[in-house]
């Protein structure tokens, strides 16, 4: 352990959908985004459970999300800097959220070179996985610069594929991108999307949920092996379990966790979202 630099703390935003068990005693913390539903404001991942949130969505509520304020980042960073740590701050793709922008402006107000901000170019647990690896590197004594450089490489290994019950939430949220080409069908369709280079991309349409799950496991087979893998869903535990089972058939030794996405990502994916995300072996 080379000690000629300060120890490093990893900061993410709440869209990393960190699963508490992952964190343990790793030096990692999250700044929450805000989700507004039915006139109430909630901190993502703190004030509102995913199940309650799904209830709102199923009831027809249209949520709004907002990035953390510059001040929220400023405060968070200041506390960490005060403990003598450098910071690697890893965030949701700036093509999907202004969070990274808030972080960058907060750093500017602090006038420090101790904060390294990295665009994850992805969302949800794919950010979480990278953050965990970064925190492990921090624990192993790597410098902030080394860790930031690593994450900037590692983000090319993130994969995320999901099927949505509807594209409506993406459309309403203005995050649909090229997947707009899949809108407008008179017949029911299950779209399959992916996150690529930080944006939502259309992959394919199928007609039924069963086919979508089949297709997702086929995509998994083409994409594997994964070093880190999560099956994610929003309010669809049975379907997620089914997908996990399929994936395990493809890669029996895979270490897989199943988790729900948070409220902010959920506001765009909508209930019924099922997919997988993770990190493949570095090429």
């Amino acid at each position: 352990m080379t000690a000629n630099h300060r120890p490093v703390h990893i900061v993410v935003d709440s869209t990393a959908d960190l699963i508490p068990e992952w964190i343990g005693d790793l030096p990692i913390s999250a700044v929450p985004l805000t989700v507004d539903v039915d006139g109430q404001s909630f901190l993502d991942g703190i004030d509102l459970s995913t199940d309650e949130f799904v209830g709102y969505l199923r009831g027809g509520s249209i949520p709004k999300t907002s990035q953390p304020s510059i001040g929220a980042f400023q405060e968070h960073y200041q506390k960490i800097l005060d403990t003598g740590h450098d910071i690697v701050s890893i965030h949701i793709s700036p093509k999907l959220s202004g969070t990274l922008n808030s972080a960058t402006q907060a750093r500017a107000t602090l006038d420090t070179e101790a904060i390294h901000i990295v665009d994850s170019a992805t969302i949800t647990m794919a950010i979480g996985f990278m953050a965990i690896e970064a925190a492990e590197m921090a624990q192993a004594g790597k410098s902030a610069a080394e860790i930031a450089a690593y994450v900037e490489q590692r983000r090319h290994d993130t994969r995320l594929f999901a099927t949505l019950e509807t594209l409506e939430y993406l459309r309403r949220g203005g995050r649909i991108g090229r997947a707009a080409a899949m809108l407008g069908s008179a017949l029911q369709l299950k779209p399959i999307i992916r996150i690529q280079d930080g944006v939502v991309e259309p992959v394919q349409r199928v007609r039924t949920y069963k086919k979508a799950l089949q297709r997702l496991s086929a995509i998994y087979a083409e994409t594997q092996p994964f070093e880190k893998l999560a099956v994610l869903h929003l309010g669809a535990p049975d379907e997620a379990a089914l997908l996990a089972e399929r994936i395990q058939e493809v890669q029996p030794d895979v270490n897989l966790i199943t988790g729900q996405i948070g409220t902010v990502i959920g506001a765009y994916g909508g209930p019924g979202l099922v997919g997988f995300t993770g990190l493949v072996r570095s090429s």
Partner: protein
Amino acid sequence: MVSRNTSSDQNSTSNSLEFNWDGQETTRALRAVVHGFEANVSSINALNVFPVPDGDTGTNMHLTLKAAISELDNHPDGQPERYDEVMKVITRGALMGARGNSGVILYQIISGLNTGASGAEVLDSETMVRGLNSAAELAYKAVTNPVEGTMLTVIREVASACEKHPGETLLETLATARKAAEVAVAATPDQLPVLRQAGVVDAGGQGLLAIFTALEQFASDDLDTTGMTLVSDPPASFATDMHFLDQAEMIHGMDEFGYCINFAVAGDDLESSGLRAALDALGQSTVVVGDATMCKVHTHSNRPGLILEAALMFGDIHNVRIDNMRSQTEQLLSERHAVADGRKEPAAPTGDPESALGIGIVAVAAGDGVSEALTGLGADVIVAGGATMNPSTGEIRDAIASLNREQVIVLPNDSNIIASARQAAELSDVDVRVVPTRSIQQCIGALTAFNFDAALDDNVAAMEAAAGDVRALAVTRAQRDAVIDGLEFRTGEFMGVLDGKPCVSGSDAVSTVRHLFQNASVQNHELATIFIGDSADETLEETIVELLEQEFPDLEFEVTTGNQPHYDLLIALE
């Protein structure tokens, strides 16, 4: 060589025997062929294997011939003087106007004659033989899996007979050709079991026979340009073919006469020439076909009563059918316009202008609801057409060109349109692939499988595979009495069609659907998408959904208005 003197004595056919055809004479011969063919359209249309509403071979061949000739009419340099020039022009016309499989093969035959014409100022026996040989060769090459007992066999037999017994004169060679065609057509049921089972000869072959017959008659100066006498008797379906709603009227529906009048005149000693002259004076496009005991009459007039009265002077009249052409034409036009308007709508709202640069998709469909569904699934342009109105090569090519994309996928959605789609692909400047979908149902599978980011080849492979996974169920009405695999179909009764093959007959739509589902091994599928057609009873939608949900609880159903013609129901089982 000089051209035959067309004003020569009608009785002196021997005079014309020595004469070959220059460009102008060939043009006259071709016009006679088109006219002569028209009289055979409905009887050729009647020769369909399955009694489903399908591609009318007679109509398709006639339209292809007409397109070939109209290229001559529009020729900027006037009527060509040389035979080879005429062939060059009409080959182009046939290429763009080819409709249906028979039209595409007919184009290949014309193209072969054109190859044989190279350098020939006039058409003589030798040139004809040379042309027929390359026609046969090209026609076979055009078909991926040539099947014997079809028009391919007929053109090959004709070429081979003319090669073995070339006449000294063009007329002799044409006579040999006609005879060989007759023999070959009669033999088609022995070569193709489906024909034997249906009790018909091959329709495309019969079409070729009509062409060779007209050519021989023109050469022998025996042709009356107002009417055609078929050398062979009309097929046994002579009387019954009157019941067919063939589409012959649609193609000449634009003239000024409102009614298309068809009937037969029977008598002991019919004066067909007198009958023809009398009707000619009263109507337009008059065709009188037959012998001294019975003639079939087809004419257009605004006063059908006068026509019938005049015919009564010659004999008894039978099987009268009078159609209002104007309303038929309007219906066809409005159907086409509706779809054409639909194609102007953007395929889908796109947030990113770059998405316009991807692969374009052209699909053939009939019915507003069906077209809308395909557009929603990603088809960029719909070409109006389907089983009973096959679009031409030119129409498909224009649709491809309208997309302005570098890569285009064409979905023909009918087995009879695949060939013209392939031809349109060859004619296009951009990279065009045909995914050979045989039904709207397969098209839904194929479109759904389209992958926005995949390369053209990968998409074509995925779409072909997905199309193959869809089972195509359909409910229609039998167009004639028929027995298929021991199953009896009666005209007008419901008929269940599974993957293009009639397999269920029924007195009502609901029981037909039920049996159809039972035949389709439903347990392997999860979703049935049902398009309700224009001919369907209003209550059908509700009744079948209730029934099917009860009987097949594991299956999902999606019902939508298809407005497709002829088919009460189209069902895609995925």
